[in-house]
C-alpha cells in the first residue's frame, strides 16, 4: 500500500503570460477524503488536469499511486469534471458502456456494473433515454455513475453536487462515504463549505496558483481556533462591523460569525454587546472552514 495516492512536488504551469499554478506541493493520503479548495480561478482545475496528465506541468513532479501516471493507471482513476461531459445524443446505456470500455472494462462486466449503479442512483427506468432528454440533476447522476462504475481506486470529483436536490445530494454523499470506507481515495473540489466540513478529512486551500494551507481539517481548524464567536441576536447588529477587536466578521440579520484578534478577550466584548443587543446565543468555537477560507483568501489577496 502506497502512503500517498497523489503526491505533487513543486509543480508550476503557465499559459502564455498568465500563471495558473506556481510552485504547488501537496500530498493526498491514500484512503482519505481530500478537499481541494480555492476561489474561482485559483488553479484548482489546472491542478486536477495536471494530475490526470491531460496537460503537462512546466516543471515539478506529479506521482499517482507512487509513480508517474501510466496509461494502465488511468483505469484506476474516476474523474467527474465540473461541467457535464456527456454526448447529448447518446442514450444512458450507450454512454456508460462507452466510458466503461474506455477504462478497459470488458463489455460483459461493464453491463453488470451499469445495472448495479443505475439501480443504486434510481435512474434505471431512464436507461434507454438520450442524455439530452434528461434533467440536469439526472445528467449529473449519470456523470457520477460514469466516474465510479469501473471501481476506481481514486476519485476526482469537481463540484459533484451541482444541480442536485437535497435528496440526491444525500444519496451521492452516502455513496461517496461508502466508497471511502471501502478504501477509495477521494479528491473533492467544491465551493460548498458545509460539504467539505462534513466530508473531508484533509483540506488544501489554494489561491492564485499557490497553496495557502493544507493538512488535517481538525488540525487546521484548531490552529485557527477558539478565537471565533458565534452570535445569535435580535436587534440591529450593523455596529458589529466597526468593532475594533474583530479581525473578520460574517454578518447575517440575526446571526454573526466573528473572528477575533489574538489579543481580544471574548467576555469583554460580550459585556459591551449585551447593552446593545438582545443576545440569544453566544458561543466560542473553532472557526468554520468557510470563515477560514474567507479570511485566508482575503489575506493572501492583500
Amino acid at each position, binding site marked *: 500500500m502506497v502512503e500517498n495516492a497523489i503526491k505533487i512536488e513543486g509543480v508550476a504551469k503557465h499559459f*502564455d503570460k498568465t500563471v495558473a499554478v506556481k510552485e504547488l506541493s501537496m500530498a493526498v493520503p491514500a484512503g482519505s477524503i481530500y478537499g481541494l479548495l480555492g476561489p474561482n480561478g485559483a488553479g484548482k482545475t489546472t491542478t486536477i*488536469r495536471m494530475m*490526470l496528465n*491531460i*496537460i*503537462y506541468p512546466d516543471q515539478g513532479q506529479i506521482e499517482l499511486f507512487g509513480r508517474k501516471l501510466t*496509461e494502465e493507471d*488511468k*483505469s484506476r*482513476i474516476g*474523474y467527474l*469534471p*465540473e*461541467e*457535464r*461531459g*456527456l*454526448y*447529448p445524443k447518446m442514450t444512458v446505456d450507450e454512454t456508460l458502456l*462507452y*466510458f466503461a*470500455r*474506455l*477504462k*478497459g472494462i470488458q463489455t460483459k462486466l461493464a453491463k453488470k456494473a451499469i445495472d448495479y449503479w443505475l439501480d443504486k442512483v434510481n435512474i434505471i427506468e431512464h436507461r434507454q433515454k438520450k442524455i439530452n432528454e434528461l434533467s440536469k440533476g439526472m445528467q449529473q447522476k449519470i456523470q457520477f455513475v*460514469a466516474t465510479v462504475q469501473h471501481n476506481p481506486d481514486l476519485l*476526482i470529483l469537481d463540484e459533484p453536487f451541482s444541480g442536485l436536490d437535497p435528496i440526491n445530494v444525500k444519496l451521492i454523499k452516502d455513496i461517496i462515504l461508502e466508497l471511502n470506507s471501502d478504501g477509495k481515495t477521494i479528491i473533492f473540489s467544491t465551493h460548498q463549505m458545509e460539504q467539505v466540513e462534513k466530508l473531508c478529512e484533509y483540506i488544501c486551500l489554494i489561491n492564485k496558483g499557490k497553496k495557502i494551507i493544507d493538512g488535517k481539517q481538525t488540525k487546521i481548524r484548531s490552529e485557527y481556533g477558539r478565537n471565533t464567536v458565534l452570535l445569535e441576536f435580535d436587534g440591529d447588529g450593523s455596529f458589529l462591523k466597526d468593532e475594533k477587536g474583530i479581525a473578520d466578521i460574517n454578518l447575517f440579520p440575526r446571526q454573526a460569525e466573528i473572528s477575533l484578534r489574538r489579543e481580544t478577550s471574548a467576555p469583554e466584548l460580550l459585556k459591551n454587546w449585551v447593552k446593545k443587543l438582545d443576545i440569544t446565543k453566544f458561543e466560542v468555537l473553532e472557526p468554520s472552514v468557510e470563515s477560514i477560507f474567507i479570511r485566508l483568501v482575503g489575506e493572501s489577496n492583500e
Partner: protein
Amino acid sequence: MNKIWVIIKREYLNIVKKKSFLVSAILTPILMVGLILLPSFLAGVALIKEREIAVIDETGYVLPALEAKRTMFEYIVKEMKNMEENQDPTAQEQIQKQIEKEAKEKGLPGGQALKLMEEMSKKVYQSFAAIHFEEIKVENGQDLKKIKENQLDRIRTKKIDVLLIIPKGVETNNDAVSYFSTSSSNFDETSLLREFISETIVDKRIADEGMNAVKIKQMTQPVLLNTNDVTKTGTKKGSFLVTYFVGITFVMLLFMAVIQTGQHLFRGVIEEKSNRIIEVLLSSIKPKQLMGGKIIGLGGAGLTLVAIWSIAGLLGLKLSGGFGVTIAPITILYFIIFFVLGYLLYSTFMAIIGAIMNSEQEAQQFISIISMALMVPLFVAMIIVKHPDSIIATILTMIPPFTPSMMVFRLSITAVPMVEIIASIVVLIISIWIMIIATTKIFRVGILMYGKKPSVKEIVKWMKYK
C-alpha cells in the same frame, strides 16, 4: 490498442446509424442517376408536332427529293414501332431486312436506312416524318414578293409553321435557301433540312457532270478513327469524353467522402470541446488514441459511403449498358490507396481545425480552403486531359494537398508511370506522418483552450511543446 477500437467503433456507428447517412447513401445515387437519365427521359416524352411547311421551290427537283426522304422516314418510324412491339428476335431480324430492302428500292444505298437509324434518335425521325410539305407554285409573271408576303401572313395567323424558299441559283450560284418561322431556332429541323437539301443539290451537280452520285458518295466516305488506350494487360476503346468523366467522377467521390466525413470530424471535436467530454475522454485515453480512433472510425464511415455509391454506380452502368466506360481493377486498387491516404491527410487538417476553432462557423471558412485544394484537378482538368503527363501535371501531383485528387484524376485518364505512382505514395505517407505529429501536439493543447481563437504564433508554439 483495445481502447482505440472502442473509439473507432463508436465514431463509425455514430455516423452510420444516423438517418442523414442513410439518406445520403441512398438518395445521392438516385439523384445522380436521375439527373443523368432525366434529359433523355424528357426528350423521349416530348410531343411530336405535325409541321406545316410551305415550300417555294424554284428548282423543281428539291421538294420531291425532300418528300421522298420524308416518306422513307415515315416508313422507318412505322417499322421501328413494329419492331418494338415484336419482341421476337427473328421477327425483328426480318423487319430489319425488309427495311433495308425497301430502302434500296426507294433509291437509297444499301444499309443506309439502318445506319440512319443508328445515328439519329427516334425523336428526330418522328418529327421529320411528321412534316407536311405544301408546294407553293409561282406561275410566270406572278410577283414572288407578294406571294412571300401572303405566306408570311399565313405563318403569322398560324395557318402554316414554316416558309421555305429554295432559289433557282442555289445550284449554280450557291444562293442561300431561306427559312421563315416564328422560331427559327428549331435546331433539329433546320439542320435536317439543310443537310437533305445540300445532299440533293450536290447529287444533282454530280449527276449533271455525268457521274454516279452514289458511287462518289461511297468513294468519298471519310475514314473512321478509333482511338484506343493501351493498358497494362491489353487495349481498351478510348473516348475523350468518357475518360474525362470517369476522372471527374473519381475526384468528386473523393471530394464528397472527405468533406462529408471530415465535417463530422471537426464537428465532433468542437462538440467534445464545448461540453468538456474531452476531459472525461482524456482521463481515460491518450490524445493520440482519441484522434486516431476518430480519424479511422470516420474514414471507415466515408469508405462505406463511397463503397455504397460505387456499387450503385457500377450496377447502374451495367444496367444501362455501360456508356462505353471500362474501369480496370488496378485503377480501382489505386483509387482505394489514394482515397485512404488522401482521406488521412485531409482528416489531419480537419482535426486541427476542430482543435483550434471554437465554433462551426469559424471552422467553415477553413473548410472551403480545403475544398479548393481538393478541387484543383477540376480547375485544371482540361489542360491535364490534353496533356496528362505534362510537367504541370507532374508538379501539381507532387504537392501533398493536391496529390490524392490529382493522382486519382490522372490515373483514370492515362497510364501514369510507375515511378510517379510510387513517388506520390511516398510523398503522401511522409506528409501524413508529419501532419499526424503536428496534429497530435496542436490537438493536445488546442482541445483544452476554450473561448479564444489562438494566433498563428501560438499554434506554432503549441507544436514546440513536448
